[in-house]
């Protein structure tokens, strides 16, 4: 069973450094909360739309993993890079991309962030540093290394955050990417969203170590395990790795233990998944829902009051509704677009 993380995981990371950036400002806390809500509301809306057969293709939703996705991206600067995978919507949203062109992309519309050509699995927003998501597991890990290399060669202090799943930790690109980034000391943070499963395969069945982060030792780089349901733990853990990378300390392997509530993917029609995880396990993780946890923390620490939380919530819901309306009203791509963008 994929167990919810114990608190000490988070401590491992937060112990690393005490830099100022580690403590988010009130504005940043608000923004974190807003982005977590955006991810969830966006996906819940998309989920409904696809069930109604209003969206083409399939969706890989990350509901339940918002703390990991947002905590990690919020540790980046706007000009930092990010690469993702098939579980794709959360990453650009967390990086700050606005919802309307993302939603339009799910509809395959001309106003989509990729002009309707990428769809759910291949969102990208280069202006926001989002270098793309990918339908091929592990395939953007070396691309992230290249973004880090590019930052070095252009003499900027940009960092690249590379999201990947627990399933990707057993593929060749993982190994080559971590070794390359390590020997070249590149500013890359490899962030494993360990949600316990690759499709229906539990991590323990596919992986020769208990924790993905243990593999850091094979590359002589720091490894950390974070409580992926605690956005602040993720934020500070990833921030430590980002700061290290930015200062020339090289890459890190950060593992965030989290969970997807939903099925591997959603499409129109009934999902009818095989039984591969227990109700008990799902309940245990839902009990530590990242948004509820964070809301409670914000209130108990008096950082943000209930009123503000409600305000943010209704703003986000309105944003999502607007995004859907924008997408629905947008035009389909022109047939000539079929031949555009193959080459410059």
């Amino acid at each position: 069973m994929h167990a919810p993380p114990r608190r000490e995981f988070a401590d491992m990371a937060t112990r690393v450094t005490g830099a100022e950036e580690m403590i988010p400002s009130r504005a940043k806390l608000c923004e974190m909360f807003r982005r977590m809500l955006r991810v969830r509301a966006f996906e819940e809306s998309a989920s409904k739309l696809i069930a109604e057969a209003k969206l083409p293709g399939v969706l890989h939703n990350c509901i339940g993993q918002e703390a990991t996705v947002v905590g990690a991206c919020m540790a980046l600067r706007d000009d930092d890079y990010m690469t993702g995978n098939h579980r794709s919507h959360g990453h650009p949203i967390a990086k700050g991309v606005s919802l309307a062109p993302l939603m339009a992309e799910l509809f395959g519309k001309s106003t989509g962030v990729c002009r309707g050509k990428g769809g759910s699995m291949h969102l990208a927003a280069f202006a926001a540093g989002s270098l793309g998501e990918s339908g091929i597991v592990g395939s953007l890990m070396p691309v992230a290394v290249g973004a880090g290399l590019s930052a070095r060669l252009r003499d900027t202090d940009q960092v690249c955050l590379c999201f990947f799943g627990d399933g990707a930790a057993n593929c060749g690109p993982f190994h080559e990417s971590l070794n390359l980034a390590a020997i070249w000391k590149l500013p890359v943070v490899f962030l494993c969203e360990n949600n316990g499963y690759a499709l229906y395969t539990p991590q323990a069945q596919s992986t020769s170590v208990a924790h993905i982060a243990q593999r850091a030792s094979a590359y002589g780089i720091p490894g950390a395990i974070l409580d992926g349901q605690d956005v602040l733990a993720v934020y500070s853990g990833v921030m430590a790795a980002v700061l290290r990378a930015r200062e020339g300390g090289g890459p890190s392997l950060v593992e965030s233990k989290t969970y997807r509530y939903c099925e591997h993917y959603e499409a129109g029609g009934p999902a009818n998944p095989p039984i591969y995880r227990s109700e008990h396990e799902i309940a245990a993780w839902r009990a530590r829902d990242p948004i509820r946890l964070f809301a409670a923390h914000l209130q108990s620490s008096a950082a943000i009051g209930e009123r503000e939380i409600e305000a943010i919530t209704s703003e986000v819901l309105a944003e999502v509704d607007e995004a859907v309306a924008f997408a629905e009203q947008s035009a389909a791509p022109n047939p000539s677009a079929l031949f555009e963008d193959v080459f410059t």
Partner: protein
Amino acid sequence: MSYITYQQAAKQAIIEEMRSDHRVFVMGEDIQVYAYADVMEEFGPERIRNTPISEIGFFGAGIGAALTGMRPIIEGGFSTFLYSAMDQVVNQAAKSRYMFGGQASVQLVIRLNVSYATSSAAHHSDRPWGLFAQVPGLKIIVPSTPYDAKGLLKSAMRDGNPVLCFDDSTLLSSSGEVPDRDYTIPLGAAEIKRAGTDLTIVTLAATVGHSLTAAQMLAGDGISVEVLDVRTVVPLDRRTILDSVTRTGRLVVVDVAPRMCGFASEVAATVAEEAFQHLKAPILRITAPDVPVPFSPDLERLMYPTPERIHAAVRKLYMKWGRSARRDLDLYHDSGERQLPDGNASSLP
């Protein structure tokens, strides 16, 4: 005889083979809980083997197992995942027997889901049978019916060579009569799906059905079309293709794959070489254009040959190059800038 789907027929081939030969086993991602969940009790997790996401690893393991006397079947998932294991497929599976002077047998079947027309975009939509046909040492089957799915897969499993089996996802749930008994269809034997005298359509996979529909429509126009399903790309049944074109004098090749250096090019080139003197019309390729697959269904639906497009293109060809057409007429070729699957455009850049 049972009336079952293409997917069921393929699985039947595998299950029967597993029952009759303990050296047959299956590897792939999530197959225990998914595609083979219903036979786990019979075969157990050693012979129905879940793999990590390690295409290099388990494709290579399939080769190693084959070299040492097993008969693995690899469930490779989507066709686009093949590239992750490309070195194993091209440098090891295809070449080992030759390099090792015949010592090695790579009795290995790799099944791939050729998914397209489902808004899955470019990472899940390749139709790469033509690409792999450039690799000497691989056989390639592309069944178009449940009957063929079972019969060709059985031949592939017994062939003794590495065979890529591309399953056209638009056919997986199509149904047909399939014998319950053991039978095989030889690799390299095309099937004449419909006899005709005016023009030959050579095709494979889902466009076999589309071509038959188009042929029906063309019959209404007074054009008698022969439809040929190659069934296997390698070996290619050139004899049957050439015989047909020798009779009809006209060739159209239909394929959902990109045009450039693809299956349609090979068939066209073969006929232009070996049946030239019988040709009464230009050869026509009706294929997907040379672009990655877009997500938007509004774009993707423009890409593939449909019965209507095949009908229109063949009709147009025949109007210009039919029985009484003058050969010297230079009217046929629009010089459209792009190749759409209406066969109607040149591919000039």
